[in-house]
């Protein structure tokens, strides 16, 4: 299609068209409408924590792909990994591989892939107002058999709405449009707390699935109706699920996935999780500047690449002699538990931490903080 024809077509559809019709027409013309995907790392390109994690299912947490939380309590077990099996237009996907079946599901069991979106990022939804907008979730999925799972949106106040979707053995795009929520109770405080949770349910016990039917409008639903009709990912160790291209956007049309550069994607993820130093990348990575505070303590600091969402957790991999302070040829080798922080002196832009369990440090002496081994790893997490 030539540019002239595109503009002409655009002029035609804009007359009397609804916003969504115009949006759909613009999308059909291939015109980039800028930022429209509220999901971060929807194309599963960023995996700062790990490319693969095994034995998942017993505890909730972030294990592999950035921003994707495994929210779970089940006796089933699975491996979660970043896969190169992806639909056309994508290079990566998230793969779930069932390794321990759970064919007798207890009432309260559940397994969910979750992404929490900050409330200050969902203002375009206008939730809780007369101008509230429909929103559309789209993604690509593939499995090992025909199955049905549940996609749910839930706001910070617990108002939710679910829709089932089908998975086949081929990559298929799922498009689910959710109605506007004009109820005043849906109006969030636009801050750094969770405004919307996107849930992909792959297992739900009767507590969440034993009801009569999934409702069709937003409300604080009966738990039992949230996942009516869902299949069980843990029905067999043959089960697999691939997912990528996850997009949540305002409007009733699932537009093409908004591809961002890897650097943009990574920076967006680093607001929630940032690696300070990774021995797997550089075994003697110099990660900070320190100064002697007293004979057995060096304080060090590091400026973040991205402002953190909120007060962060410092994570230091347990590695014997994995971290040291260096001053010319002098090294201080504390135990791995010697890196820590005091919460009250932190900011969202940098960390001020300490190294203890050392001796012979001169006050105000200068030190370079350094990793000492491939398994040494320091990160901060400010996930929702």
């Amino acid at each position: 299609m030539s540019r002239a024809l595109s503009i002409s077509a655009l002029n035609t559809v804009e007359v009397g068209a609804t916003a969504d019709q115009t949006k759909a027409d613009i999308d059909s013309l291939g015109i980039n409408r800028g930022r429209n995907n509220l999901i971060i790392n929807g194309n599963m390109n960023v995996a700062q924590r790990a490319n693969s994690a095994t034995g998942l299912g017993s505890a909730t947490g972030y294990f592999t792909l950035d921003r994707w939380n495994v929210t779970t309590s089940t006796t089933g077990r699975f491996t979660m990994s970043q896969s190169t099996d992806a639909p056309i237009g994508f290079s990566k996907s998230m793969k779930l591989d069932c390794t321990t079946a759970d064919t007798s599901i207890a009432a309260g069991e559940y397994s969910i892939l979750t992404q929490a979106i900050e409330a200050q990022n969902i203002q375009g939804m206008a939730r809780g107002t007369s101008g509230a907008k429909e929103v559309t979730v789209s993604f690509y999925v593939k499995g090992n058999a025909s199955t049905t799972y549940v996609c749910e949106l839930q706001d910070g106040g617990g108002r939710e709405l679910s829709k089932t979707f089908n998975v086949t053995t081929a990559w298929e795009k799922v498009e689910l449009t959710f109605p506007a929520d004009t109820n005043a109770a849906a109006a969030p405080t636009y801050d750094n707390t969770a405004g919307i949770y996107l849930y992909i349910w792959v297992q739900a016990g009767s507590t969440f699935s034993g009801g009569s039917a999934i409702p069709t409008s937003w409300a604080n639903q009966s738990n039992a109706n949230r996942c009516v009709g869902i299949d069980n990912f843990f029905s067999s160790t043959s089960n697999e699920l691939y997912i990528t291209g996850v997009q949540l956007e305002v409007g009733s049309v699932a537009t093409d996935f908004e591809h961002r550069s890897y650097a943009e994607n990574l920076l967006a993820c680093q607001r929630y999780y940032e690696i300070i130093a990774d021995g797997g990348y550089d075994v003697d990575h110099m990660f900070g500047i320190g100064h002697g505070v007293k004979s057995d303590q060096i304080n060090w600091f590091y400026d973040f690449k991205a402002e953190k969402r909120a007060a962060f957790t410092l994570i230091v991999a347990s590695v014997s002699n994995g971290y040291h302070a260096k001053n010319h040829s002098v090294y201080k080798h504390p135990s791995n538990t010697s890196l820590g922080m005091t919460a009250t002196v932190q900011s969202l832009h940098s960390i001020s931490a300490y190294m203890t369990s050392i001796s012979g440090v001169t006050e105000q002496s200068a030190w370079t903080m350094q990793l000492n081994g491939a398994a040494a790893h320091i990160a901060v997490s400010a996930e929702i």
Partner: protein
Amino acid sequence: MKIETVKMESDCYRVNGTMIVPPSTDNADYFFVQEWLAAGNTPTPQYTDAQIAATAQAELNVTSRSYLASTDWYASRKSDTGEAIPAEVITARAAARESIV
């Protein structure tokens, strides 16, 4: 998050030995710590009684040695001139020597 151990450290919680979690309701990990505490669990204190005692003794050693050093001149004066060391200084120096371990 599966919590196995929690130890107090500075004003934070060291969880499972590798995570230093601030006591902030904005922090998602602190939510799990609160759940763990609400279940009746108690964090390990940052220092054991023995460590606290050892630290206190070390500080006392420094103080006592400093006092002895600062009053050594009484002994030198007595040696040089024969002038007696005041009784209260003798008592205090003896106590200082006793306190050093």
